[in-house]
């Protein structure tokens, strides 16, 4: 079989070619439809990817407030977790102070802490004001009820400067004690011309510059009323509260 025969054979092989029904416009339309379908498919894919990425990354970026479900805190220990928000820290310390006070003074009832970042507004929660540079990190009251009636302790946690002389000015007793961790505790009692202690205060200064002040008055400092003969919580208990190793102040 020669090459010429193969050539002729191939030409003869297509003799029964069926009629060609080919329309270039139909073909172009089909291609354009395919292109638009592919574009739509890509758009859906990209959108799905964006949603998937967002759903994974957004929960990590959103602030975890304790009121939200994401920020729901079920921990019971009071040690400070890393990068804890001020709100959570205030709440944690308030709860712990109330718990410890109840353990130390079993005659007290309805003990609970209420703290907020910055300066505590008087009366509590009646207004809200923006935090200013000199304001404490957080402050608030530990509310309690004893045999006389409801009253409160004032608590301030701050990094502003502390002056011992100013603090002890007018005090009948002012005593300073260094703790094992290097912090310094200053206790003071004020009689204000009476025979009973009218004001008891304890300040613990940490080496980091943070200082914690717990004050007990012969009246209710949260509302300025409820005058009584002496303070509801003595300075010794205040010192125990401020030096409690179970409370991570820093």
């Amino acid at each position, binding site marked *: 079989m020669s090459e010429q025969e193969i050539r002729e*054979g*191939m030409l003869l*092989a297509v*003799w029964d070619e*069926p009629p060609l029904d*080919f329309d270039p416009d139909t073909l*172009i339309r089909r291609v354009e439809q395919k*292109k638009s379908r592919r574009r739509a498919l890509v758009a859906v894919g990209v959108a799905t990817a964006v949603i998937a990425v967002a759903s994974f990354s957004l929960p990590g970026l959103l602030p975890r407030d304790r009121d939200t479900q994401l920020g729901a805190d079920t921990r019971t220990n009071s040690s400070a977790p890393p990068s804890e928000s001020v709100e959570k820290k205030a709440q944690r310390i308030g709860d712990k102070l109330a718990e410890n006070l109840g353990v130390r003074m079993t005659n007290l009832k309805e003990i609970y802490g209420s703290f907020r970042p910055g300066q505590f507004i008087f009366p509590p929660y009646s207004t809200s004001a923006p935090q200013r540079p000199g304001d404490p990190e957080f402050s608030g009251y530990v509310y309690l009820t004893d045999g006389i009636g409801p009253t409160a302790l004032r608590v301030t946690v701050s990094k502003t400067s502390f002056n011992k002389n100013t603090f002890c000015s007018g005090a009948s007793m002012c005593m300073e004690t260094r703790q094992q961790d290097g912090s310094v505790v200053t206790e003071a009692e004020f009689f204000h011309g009476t025979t009973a202690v009218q004001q008891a205060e304890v300040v613990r200064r940490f080496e980091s510059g943070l200082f914690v002040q717990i004050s007990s008055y012969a009246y209710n400092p949260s509302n300025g009323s409820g005058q009584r003969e002496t303070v509801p919580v003595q300075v010794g208990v205040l010192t125990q509260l401020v030096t409690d190793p179970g409370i991570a102040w820093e």
Partner: protein
Amino acid sequence: MRKADEQGFREFAAANAASLRRTAYLFCGDWHTAEDLMQSSLMKMYLAWKRIKDLDNLIAYARKVLLRTWLDEKRRPWRRAEQRDGELPDAADATVDPDTTSAKLWARELVHTALLQVPPRQRAVLVLRYFEDLPVAEVAVAMGCSEGTVKSQTARGLATLRTIVEKLDSSSGRVAS
């Protein structure tokens, strides 16, 4: 795509669709598959038209696309070839010359039986060399191989085809020239 480019493609497709389908038929041995291959090739060319419209030899490029499309199609694992289990009865056409018809039928047999038994790349070389009448250099471009490979594939393809045709002729009683 701009209207002018689209019109250019439309003219190219209309002018070469039949020729491409015939080549595709000799590749695959089936007119329906040949039409699919031709349309797929033209669709690929339409998508790339902006880039290829200024090529010197567009029909050579089209043949290359057609060959690639057919080879790709053959490689697909899910591709199912038609399984023929019988012959359709051929009705006699009294208007045609019996000698001519006999030659044509033999030629069709050549394609359906002999050429389809040649391995695909060798078959493609034979079709491009002897049906399209392309020089070795152009076949090499279409195949994406060297001219030496085209020559060796042609020689092997011819040998395979001659062996098969001789077998066919001896079984049918026809004398091979």
